């Protein structure tokens, strides 16, 4: 029997739907009837002004973490830049963010990253002001719904086809999720207390209104979590302009070209906003639907 979680478009049919998703229409009657639709209409919490202000100006590039040193994220303590953004000397964009989530566990995060790509509304309720929609391929959906796979591994090898505004207009972004090993982490150190869970991969973003001149931009995305006495600590890193090439980060910018600073800052601000919302609603939605994939 077809359910909202199993509704499947072919690639040919899905792609044209993204223009409509980018318009962020009101929910359909079918969506309004979903048990989690109420989250779409909630008032969205605003970021802590002091935190948001840290994304106002670029940080010192010499203090930014280069993607080849991603394993420094497994060191105890903190790196030079935990909140900030800049352009690296090679033109790539760098973003760091850190938020602590009291009352949130790694299990909740694992469930959320597997649960939300199954239908547009699940993604839209995360951050209604800027999330347009999401879709999976048939094989991706099959893996996400495969109960024999641990929740923390469901996304490995799965591609989320996302329509999202990262403060620079609506884009179609394909995010290929990787296992931490394939992403490049040192698995001898990938354990407690250095890390509780991870969600990351390789993205390619292009404007929804793409034409032959549009640039499809790569980025490496890293969300790494560890337990602290205050709650689950979420540390984000983005490297815009980098792609993972057989497990090795490689700058994919033409010589002399830099990622526009407005795009780096835009994603940095978007990240603060969507994960501020995440902090407030994940424990509540997990209490209602957590652990299960169908709703």
């Amino acid at each position: 029997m077809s359910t909202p979680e199993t509704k499947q478009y072919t690639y040919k049919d899905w792609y044209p739907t993204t223009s409509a998703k980018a318009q962020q229409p009101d929910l359909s009657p079918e969506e309004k009837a979903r048990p989690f639709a109420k989250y779409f209409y909630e008032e969205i919490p605003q970021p802590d002004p002091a935190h948001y202000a840290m994304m106002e100006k670029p940080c010192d590039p010499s203090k930014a973490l280069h993607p080849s040193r991603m394993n420094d994220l497994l060191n105890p303590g903190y790196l030079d830049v935990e909140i900030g953004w800049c352009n690296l000397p090679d033109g790539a964009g760098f973003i760091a963010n850190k938020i602590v989530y009291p009352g949130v566990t790694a299990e909740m995060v694992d469930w959320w990253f597997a649960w939300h790509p199954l239908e547009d509304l699940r993604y839209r309720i995360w951050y209604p002001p800027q999330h347009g929609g999401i879709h999976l391929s048939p094989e991706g959906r099959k893996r996400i719904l495969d109960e024999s796979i641990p929740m923390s591994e469901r996304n490995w090898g799965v591609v989320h086809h996302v329509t999202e505004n990262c403060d620079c207009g609506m884009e179609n972004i394909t995010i290929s999720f990787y296992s931490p090993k394939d992403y490049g982490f040192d698995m001898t150190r990938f354990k407690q207390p250095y890390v509780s869970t991870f969600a990351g991969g390789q993205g390619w973003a292009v404007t929804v209104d793409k034409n032959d001149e549009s640039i499809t931009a790569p980025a490496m995305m890293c969300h790494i979590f560890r337990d602290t006495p205050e709650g689950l600590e979420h540390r984000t890193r983005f490297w815009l302009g980098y792609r993972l090439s057989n497990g090795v980060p490689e700058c994919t910018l033409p010589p002399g070209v830099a990622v526009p600073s407005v795009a780096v800052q835009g994603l940095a601000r978007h990240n603060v906003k969507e994960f501020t919302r995440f902090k407030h609603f994940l424990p509540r939605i997990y209490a209602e639907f957590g652990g299960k994939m169908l709703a």
Partner: protein
Amino acid sequence: MPIKLMAASRKRPGLTRAEYQRYIEFYHGTIARQERFKIDSYVQNHVIDGAWGLLSDADHENKVVDRDAVVEISFKNFRDMMETLEPAVPSAASQDGKFFANESTNIIVMAEEEEIPVPTPLTTFNPGLGIVKGVGALKVLQYIMRDEEVYPEDYKKSWRMAHEEAVEKAPYYKEQARRVQANWRCRANDNDGAARKHFKMIDPPTYDLVVAHWFDTMEQVGAFRQYVEAMQNATGPKFANWSKSFFLYTKQIVVVRDTPLS
């Protein structure tokens, strides 16, 4: 990770295939050696024969169905490729194309290589010392167009399943394929303005995968026929548009390659 440009071109009006192949090997190839820029390796594959589409097709679905060579230009990384394609002063190689190629019909794939293991990389016919594996004088280049309904990530998975099934169902191929290399289209190919400018193609078709198969000699080409028919009839999910796919039997000519000793 190396990145490779694969350009499949056809001869300009008025040239025979032999004249075209003479030109690209001895003139264009020499220019590439003289103006190497950051080219890591440069291989030409001179087309001997090939086929487009299926026997069941009433007509060709591609606008242009002739290819006379496929050149493969490899770079250590994306930046090296861009510096070579867009030098400060236009390169002679980019100006030379019009003397041999019908440039507007070029098909470009910017690809990353993946070696696919084969059961019998060593020939049983006169293997000599038996220490050189994975080589062959006949190279088949198989361009497989993704079915437009299939997601790129599922295409990859389905091809692997179909390949494994076809190898099992094609015993002659299983015995004779000496090397197989999958060349996967990189998303950096989406930004192919520099490649379009260099190779001057207009509205080219998009191929997500080019598979290279090596055999000992032209005498074993029937092994590929057996394989490709098994693949087209594979039992897994549909993943390819075979009417827009094609394969080329080629002879490989190395123009630039600093061959390591091991």
